[in-house]
């Protein structure tokens, strides 16, 4: 049976800036299976973030195919793709994930507002998630009133709001202390097991990569096999 959630087929990404071409991905084939915990590792500039953007359907490849739940995203309309992203994928970026003029609670609620969930339901869910990340006492704080670690935990809670199939995180714990890192990773691992989610994280830290069942090494836009 086919339990592949995301499949990349010969994906290339070329950035053109001021006439200069940057080959960020040079033909990547990748399959991420359901309930898999994958870590993407590689040197700076190797194309990790670019790869994650492809997986999360945040950007379109220059060539090649991205297939999400059996659907080639290049065939989808922008509005459908956007909604699918909102419902199936939860993304956490390295910095500044939150809406600056909404409170922690409102930030968690936001993805549910986007996909037009019922108001009662979404408010209850937002409170649950806030509790789950242990930040109930920060419900009415704005992002600027929280610490970096707290912000990231709110961002994770927000990524979970629509019960996505896939959680993607780019350097989730990059600028946090070791203790907080461990806390966040433990939380993510627990969630992945509980909710049977697919998790893909980018990291350059081996300690973080330990959590993963599968490590994808990327060097200069290519996946290094057997790394």
């Amino acid at each position, binding site marked *: 049976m086919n339990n592949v959630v995301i499949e990349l087929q010969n994906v290339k990404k070329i950035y053109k800036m001021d006439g200069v071409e940057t080959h960020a991905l040079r033909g990547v084939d990748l399959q991420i299976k359901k309930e898999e915990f994958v870590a993407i590792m590689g040197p700076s500039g190797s194309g990790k973030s670019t790869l994650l*953007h492809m997986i*999360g359907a*945040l*950007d379109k490849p220059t060539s090649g195919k991205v297939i999400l739940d059996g659907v080639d995203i290049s065939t989808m309309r*922008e*509005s459908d793709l*956007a*909604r*699918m*992203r*909102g*419902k199936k994928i939860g*993304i956490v*970026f390295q910095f*500044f*994930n*939150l*809406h*600056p*003029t*909404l409170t922690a609670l409102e930030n968690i609620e*936001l*993805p549910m*507002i*986007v*996909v*037009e969930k019922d108001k009662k339901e979404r408010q209850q869910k937002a409170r649950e998630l806030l509790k789950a990340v242990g930040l109930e006492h920060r419900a009415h704080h704005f992002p600027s009133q929280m610490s970096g670690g707290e912000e990231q935990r709110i961002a994770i809670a*927000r990524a979970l709001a*629509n019960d996505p199939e896939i959680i993607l995180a780019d350097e989730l714990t990059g600028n946090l202390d070791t203790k907080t890192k461990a806390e966040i990773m433990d939380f993510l691992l627990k969630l992945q097991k509980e909710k049977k989610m697919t998790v893909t994280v980018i990291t350059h830290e081996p300690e973080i990569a330990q959590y993963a069942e599968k490590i994808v090494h990327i060097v200069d836009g290519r996946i290094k096999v057997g790394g």
Partner: protein
Amino acid sequence: MKFADIFKLSLNSLTHRGLRSWLTILGIIIGVAAVIAMLSISAGMSQNMQAQFSSFGTDVLTVSAGRTRAFGPEGGFGDRFQPGSSQSGTSGQTSQTTTTPTLTDKDILAISTADGIETVTGVISGRSTVQYLAQTVTVTVEGVDPAAWNTMTTSQLALGRFLELGDGNSVLVGNSIANGMFNYNLTENTPIRIGSKTFIIVGILKQSGTGSFGGDDRTIFMTIPAARQIVTGLDTDQYSSIQIKITDTNAVDQITQNVDQVLYSSRQVTADTADFTVTSPTSMLETIQSTMATLTFFLTGIAAISLLVGAIGIANTMFMSVMERTRLIGILKSIGTRNSEIMKLFITESGIIGLMGGLLGIFLGFIVVGVISSVGINIMGMGRMGTGTNTSVAVVTPELILFALLFSTIIGIISGLIPARKAANLQIVEAMRSE
């Protein structure tokens, strides 16, 4: 995303930008207030002017001597509204007529032969001193033929009766003269001294707000023989003007031509050398209306420029707002927000700015209009106009308010269109790279 939520998010970002939002709104407030003030002042002015010239029904033509007093484009329209002295027009007109009187019984006779004429009557007008108790003022005095005048005027009686044929020393007094001009108000049977003769008041007119052609608030009416004793300089067969009641108001233009024709031949002049002018209420109104239209256009144009500046302010603010929130737009898109929703978000924001500006602009406009109505009347050169209870300098209509609200909202939306498109078309990955 539901529109209610889009609206809330827009409002959220507007309120969080506090002062900057208000400054942008201020631009629209000033523009809308200026437009409201200009439009309503124009409307008020034209209402007043129309009221001024309708003291006779639409079925009355007036013949006056000379060409310079014509209500044509090159006519003396302007000097009726010289700042500070609305009466100077009347006195100027009278002195001109009395020094070069050219309308006589012969003209009345000629006019009565034209088609479409019901009644023709001569009118004598001039200025005279009026004394009551210890006070003396100077007002306009008109000598009229009661039989004809009573059928032509639109003025109504407040007290007493109209003039009658044999009234030798009876007068009918305009409302503003009776009430307020003297320390003690005039009433029926009060004797007053006009020139060197004593008259008895038989009637007082209602306030009409109308102008110098008849049922005037600041005119005293008497019979023609009486007026000849007060207004000097006119021979016994001469008149200051001639009033004609026509049979068919739908044929005003035709009957005006008929009158022109009979006077051309009786006075032995041509259209080019004509030394008289026939005016109809409609021709006056047309002139007034076209003058007012030009004025309105001009004033509103100036106001519209300030509104345009406000609109540019909105566009500028929205562009800045898109730039500042590039990363936020990326985040919103990454959690599933559609391009069309991003677009709506920004357009709603600029629309709210426009709407708020419109609402507060109307409010400010009201204040400006109120201040101008009470203070600015004399500045506008319309001293007479403010006196009528039924006249106002500025008129704010519900349509105007609705229009202003709609218009300012649309301005907001249009100003936000390009910035919103820019926001909607941002690529997520690009947006996320901006700090």
